[in-house]
């Protein structure tokens, strides 16, 4: 059967659609042909697939062929059977008959004959030519058709349909279509069964010697092809998959040694998308096919079907794994294949799939997941192709152009060299090429990395090519490895290198015979015995490759360095783009790095920088510092060349920020010197440099600095420098941010230190001006290196970790500064609350109490108010306030004298311009300042009547003193207070006439009340009487001296009795006498402590006998002996007075003398001025308090004055008093004569608002 292979291929290629046979019984085809063919392709066909499930196929192509056609005739039965898939799937019998008899006699037997073949699927189309207007003919046609149906249709199957040529009948065509499809379906099913049966039968023989894969293949592919014709692509694909499995099994059967293939011209170009690449008959080998071609053929068939199924993604996925697995297969047969055929095949295979896919796939209809996968496989294909391409290029000497990067090294250093049976040897006339390669190698100086970074270049070879190539040469033994060491000349000429290489090789005796015939003749071809040099290996490989490669594009790509770069760029870009589309960003970005390297090499620095930036961003973002350290110097170099100063600086900073171990100290110093050099140069566009990763900062450990409101301070901050050397900063500032108040904005504080940062930790002090209350955290560090401003945002990671999450360097921001809310920092109060002596120099004590705040350098300004002055003849004293108290306690226990305790702390201060500076020792303790002050009051004290004691006004003795304390480190704090100090006379004197004796002597009692908290000593007292009064017995007015000194304790009272009598004097002098006063003189001493109150004046020496003199005026009044007017208080009419009740006060005024006689000078002879005087707290007066009333001058005339009053308080109170200011007290006789009291009851209870029960 295998002989039929060629025929099978020919049939397959000639028949591409299902055939429907037309049995034209009545010569109707020409008239119906057009109508029939218009139905093709079949719009919708329901077919059964291999598993008998219905499948709807749209636009199923088919072809009508007359049974008389040559294509359906002249076939041998054997052929028909073998290639059954091409036989008709339905037979349409076209008949026409208008006569019943004719039908019965001629047509029917003929039809019976036609349809008797059971294997055919047939149906009859009766064509009626009758015109609709011709009733007769129509009727006859109907009759014939009815007969036809009776004869050929059965209940099971309707086999007839009728076509009216002259009438449009839509239902016919539907019927026609369904009948064709039904026939095709049935035929297909029957044939599938047939093929399956055959295949099953053949499969059973698989392990027998008669097994022939070619026969099996023909059957299997016939079935697959039939499915394909019926558009059942899924089934067809399955058949090919099974075929592949079966083939793999066959080919792997041990025992038979088969040709692999791949040795023919053009085999290096992958044919995995071209099924028709080679006729199958050419690749037959015994009972099977050659693996090299056949597996590609199978894949081509599969991919063709996948494209038809609209699954290009699957083509890529299958294609990639096919290439990988086929490449492994190629490796197994590598020693029989042309040099590097495997690599070339992989390259062409990848490119073939990529190009076919990209032309078909538009990528818009697929789901995102599938799309991702599609791009990933494409990326993989590009990447694979790229690696193989690099491998080829490396072997022919283009390795100098390949970047020794991680990705290239990882791909190439783990990819084994090709393993040909014999390494190609150098052709005879290749000396010029060898020289050229030699030159290329020599010219390729390894590029010096920027910053003098020296790294061992990453390997691009799995093992030394020199060694590998020589080892695989037929004539060299494996043993003499030392000869094969890479002695690639790095300096001098290639010839020298060779000569240097030769002598040592002599030392090692080789088991192989070889000849070293003097100096090497370069012109001669390389002896087989001599190891090839690298340049020779390249030339040999190039020649061998040119033999292998037939693809002109690939040949061109390898023809020169420029072409190589072009292709290399194309492949790298393709891989990168596809990886990016597939979201494999790491793969993509890595390849971007390769693109960048190529751009860089070609001087396209702008694009190179952009690509490098992408790579760096990825590595930096994910924290892979080792990888970043490889790429970042390249980026920096691009930026330097491009004069991108900001970018270059930032790259240098990033390089410095990388882990220390990644670069040598020398290299790190180079980075720093670049930064410093640029910073001090004139930059065109100075941009602040972000050094967050390099210079970090944090507050010092421990509690934050606390400042009082308004205080400046000094903040100490740790700054870590990542520079390898000291770095000089022009300035260094930090911002403070309020934690709870974003509106506050940021405050910048400046460092006052010398700005040289050492590597590692530096402690920097910063001046903090007064801040608003609140907590502050460190914000941004800014500063300047040369002309370059920099800023750092990051907190230091140098401090101890605060949290378990050691990955998080962002510590919760700890406040570094707390400015406390305003609070009292100091208090100044008067030391003594009791009164001091008026008009004497007294010590005024001020307690200065710092409240947890130092008063160092404090300055107290004192401003005395009116009536008070500081006596500057005395020093100000300062005293520890607490100490005496403590000493008192300790004195009892330890017997320490109080004087000793005081002497240590008492200081004297000087007042300058109203200011006094507090001593340093007093800055933290409570102290008392003693000022000598004198309150001045020029008025003389007046004695009060004991009967109506007038309250002394406190205000009279009040003096104020304004204090202003400036303190704090910068005298920024100010405390102001005005203190009231009470001064008083030592005594308050009251007088009363205790008795009027019958002889005209008056006993004048003088009571002396002590006003101060000190013991007073009365040394002497005398009364200087006013005219009109004399001391009894003409004495000098002094009490008996034996009584003195009289001691008056604080707040107690003493009394002195004077006997005076009225001096008789002429009447006319009386008025003048009234104006004068008696003076009581008191000589006294005082014994008091200034810590309690009044004390001996500072001017007096302590313990001296100096006495103080106090004068008080006493008004004495002569009795009324000759009154002119009498005023009588008329008792109330009611029994009692009540609060809130109106009462009429009545006084009767009566003249006792004629006015003319008594007072001739009075002008207002008949009017008297009156005035009611009442205590407004007790009485409310309704009516006129003061006025004139008419009173006749005649003696005895009288009048009543009535004033309505209301008492306000209850008790015994003094009633209002009627005075006559125009007359003078000495002329008025009062009744009652002295002050008297009335009783006022509380108000009655009011029940107005109480309702009766």
């Amino acid at each position: 059967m295998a002989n039929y292979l060629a025929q099978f291929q020919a049939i397959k290629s000639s028949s591409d659609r299902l055939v429907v046979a037309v049995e034209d019984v009545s010569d109707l085809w020409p008239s119906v042909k057009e109508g029939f063919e218009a139905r093709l392709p079949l719009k919708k066909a329901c077919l059964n697939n291999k598993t008998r499930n219905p499948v709807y196929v749209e636009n199923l192509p088919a072809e009508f062929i007359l049974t008389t056609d040559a294509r359906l005739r002249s076939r041998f039965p054997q052929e028909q059977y073998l290639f059954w898939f091409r036989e008709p799937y339905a037979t349409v019998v076209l008949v026409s008959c208008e006569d019943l008899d004719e039908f019965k006699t001629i047509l029917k037997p003929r039809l019976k004959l036609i349809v008797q073949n059971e294997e055919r699927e047939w149906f009859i189309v009766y064509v009626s030519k009758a015109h609709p207007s011709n009733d007769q003919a129509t009727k006859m046609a109907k009759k014939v058709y009815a007969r036809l149906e009776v004869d050929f249709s059965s209940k099971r199957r309707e086999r007839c349909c009728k076509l009216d040529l002259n009438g449009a009948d839509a239902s016919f065509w539907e019927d026609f279509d369904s009948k064709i499809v039904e026939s095709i379906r049935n035929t297909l099913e029957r044939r599938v069964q047939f093929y399956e049966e055959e295949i099953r039968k053949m499969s059973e023989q698989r392990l027998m010697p008669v097994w022939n894969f070619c026969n099996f293949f023909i059957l299997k592919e016939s079935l697959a092809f039939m499915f394909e014709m019926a558009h059942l692509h899924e089934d067809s694909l399955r058949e090919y998959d099974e075929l592949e499995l079966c083939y793999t099994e066959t080919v792997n059967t041990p025992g038979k040694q088969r040709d692999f293939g791949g040795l023919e011209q053009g085999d290096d170009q992958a044919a995995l998308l071209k099924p028709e690449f080679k006729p199958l008959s050419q690749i037959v080998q015994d009972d099977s096919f050659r693996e090299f071609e056949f597996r590609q053929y199978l894949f081509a068939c599969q991919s063709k079907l996948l494209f038809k199924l609209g699954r290009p993604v699957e083509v890529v996925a299958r294609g990639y794994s096919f290439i990988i697995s086929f490449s492994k297969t190629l490796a197994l047969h590598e020693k029989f294949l042309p040099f590097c055929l495997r690599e070339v095949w992989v390259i062409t295979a990848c490119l073939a799939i990529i190009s076919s896919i990209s032309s078909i796939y538009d990528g818009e209809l697929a789901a995102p997941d599938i799309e991702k996968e599609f791009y990933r496989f494409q990326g993989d294909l590009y990447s694979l192709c790229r690696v193989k391409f690099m491998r080829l290029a490396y072997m022919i000497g283009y390795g100098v152009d390949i970047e020794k990067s991680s990705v290239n090294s990882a791909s190439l250093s783990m990819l084994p060299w090709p393993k040909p049976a014999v390494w190609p040897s150098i052709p005879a006339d290749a000396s010029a090429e060898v020289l050229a390669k030699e030159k290329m190698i020599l010219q390729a100086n390894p590029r010096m990395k920027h910053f003098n970074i020296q790294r061992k270049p990453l390997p691009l070879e799995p093992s030394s090519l020199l060694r590998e190539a020589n080892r695989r040469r037929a004539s060299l033994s494996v043993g003499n490895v030392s000869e094969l060491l890479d002695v690639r000349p790095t300096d001098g000429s290639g010839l020298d290198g060779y000569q240097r290489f030769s002598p040592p090789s002599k030392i090692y005796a080789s088991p192989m015979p070889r000849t070293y015939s003097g100096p090497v003749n370069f012109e001669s071809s390389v002896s087989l015995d001599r190891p090839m040099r690298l340049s020779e290996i390249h030339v040999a490989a190039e020649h061998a490759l040119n033999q292998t490669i037939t693809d002109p594009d690939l040949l061109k790509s390898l023809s020169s360095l420029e072409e190589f770069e072009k292709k290399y760029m194309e492949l790298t870009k393709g891989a990168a783009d596809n990886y990016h589309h597939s979201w494999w960003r790491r793969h993509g970005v890595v390849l971007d790095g390769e693109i960048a390297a190529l751009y860089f090499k070609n001087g396209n620095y702008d694009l190179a920088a952009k690509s490098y930036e992408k790579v760096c961003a990825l590595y930096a973002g994910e924290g892979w510092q080792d990888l970043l350290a490889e790429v970042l110097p390249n980026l920096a170099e691009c930026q330097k060349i491009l004069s991108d100063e900001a970018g270059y600086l930032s790259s240098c900073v990033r390089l410095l920020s990388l882990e220390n171990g990644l670069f040598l100290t020398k290299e790190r110093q180079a980075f720093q010197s670049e930064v410093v050099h640029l910073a001090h140069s004139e930059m065109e566009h100075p941009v602040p440099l972000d050094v967050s990763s390099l210079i970090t900062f944090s507050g010092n450990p421990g509690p934050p600095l606390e400042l009082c409101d308004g205080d400046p301070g000094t903040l100490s901050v740790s700054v870590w420098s990542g520079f390898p050397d000291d770095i000089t900063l022009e300035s260094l500032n930090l911002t403070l941010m309020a934690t709870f108040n974003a509106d506050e904005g940021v405050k910048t504080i400046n460092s006052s230190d010398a700005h040289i940062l050492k590597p590692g930790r530096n402690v920097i002090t910063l001046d903090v001006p007064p801040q608003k209350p609140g907590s502050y955290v460190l914000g941004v560090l800014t500063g300047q290196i040369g002309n370059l401003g920099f800023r750092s945002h990051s907190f230091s990671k140098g401090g101890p970790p605060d949290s378990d999450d050691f990955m998080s360097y962002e510590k919760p921001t700890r406040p570094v500064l707390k400015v406390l809310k305003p609070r009292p920092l100091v208090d100044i109060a008067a030391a003594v609350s009791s009164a001091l002596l008026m008009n004497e120099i007294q010590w005024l004590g001020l307690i200065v109490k710092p409240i947890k705040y130092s008063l160092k350098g404090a300055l107290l300004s004192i401003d005395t108010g009116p009536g008070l002055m500081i006596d500057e003849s005395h020093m100000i004293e300062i005293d520890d306030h607490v100490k005496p108290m403590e000493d008192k306690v300790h004195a009892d226990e330890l017997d320490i004298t109080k004087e000793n305790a005081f002497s240590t702390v008492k200081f004297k201060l000087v007042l300058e311009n109203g200011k006094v500076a507090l001593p340093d020792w007093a800055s933290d303790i409570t102290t008392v300042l003693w000022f000598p002050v004198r309150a001045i009051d020029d008025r003389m004290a007046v004695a009060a009547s004991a009967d109506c004691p007038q309250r002394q006004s406190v205000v009279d003795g009040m003096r104020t003193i304004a204090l202003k304390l400036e303190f704090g480190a910068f005298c920024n704090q100010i405390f102001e207070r005005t203190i009231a100090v009470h001064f008083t006379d030592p005594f308050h004197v009251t007088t009363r006439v205790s008795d009027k004796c019958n002889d005209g002597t008056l006993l004048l009692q003088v009571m002396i009340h002590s006003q101060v908290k000190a013991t007073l000593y009365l040394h002497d007292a005398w009364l200087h009487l006013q005219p009109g009064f004399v001391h009894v017995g003409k004495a000098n007015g002094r009490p008996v001296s034996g009584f003195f000194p009289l001691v008056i304790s604080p707040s107690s009272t003493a009394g002195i009795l004077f006997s005076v009598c009225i001096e008789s004097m002429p009447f006319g002098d009386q008025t003048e006498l009234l104006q004068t006063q008696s003076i009581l003189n008191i000589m006294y001493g005082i014994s008091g402590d200034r810590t309690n109150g009044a004390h001996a004046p500072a001017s007096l020496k302590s313990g001296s006998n100096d006495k103080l003199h106090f004068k008080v005026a006493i008004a004495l009044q002569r009795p009324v002996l000759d009154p002119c007017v009498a005023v009588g208080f008329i008792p109330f009419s009611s029994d009692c007075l009540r609060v809130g009740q109106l009462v009429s006060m009545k006084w009767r005024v009566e003249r006792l003398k004629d006015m003319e006689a008594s007072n001739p000078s009075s002008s207002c002879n008949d009017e008297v001025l009156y005035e009611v005087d009442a205590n407004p707290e007790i009485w409310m007066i309704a009516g006129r308090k003061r006025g004139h009333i008419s009173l006749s001058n005649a003696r005895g005339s009288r009048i009543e004055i009535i004033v309505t009053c209301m008492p306000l308080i209850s008790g015994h109170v003094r009633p209002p008093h009627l005075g006559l200011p125009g007359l003078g007290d000495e002329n008025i006789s009062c009744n009652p004569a002295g002050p008297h009291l009335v009783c006022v009851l509380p108000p009655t209870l009011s029940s107005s608002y109480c309702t009766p029960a």
Partner: protein
Amino acid sequence: MANTACFIIVSRNDIPIYEAEVGSAMKKEEAAQQHQFILHAALDIVEDLAWTTSAILMLLHDSRNEDGIKSFFQEVQELYIKVTFCYYLFVFFVSEYFA
């Protein structure tokens, strides 16, 4: 590179947080860098697979090598014990200090 392995723990942000070379072979500088490179690129695959599997460990190896994998895991376990022991030692000292 036959018997050397690179062991890296990567945080959820793809940052390498622990790195150790395990294996008997001498540490080669370029090999270390290449390991890093390969493992980093492998994260692309990890990202894809992370959604389809509940495994938390991925082993990237050249060829089928049961013994090699076994010894790798043994060494990793030793490392783990060393690291955790250091932690407990630290905790112990701290608790002693504050006791």
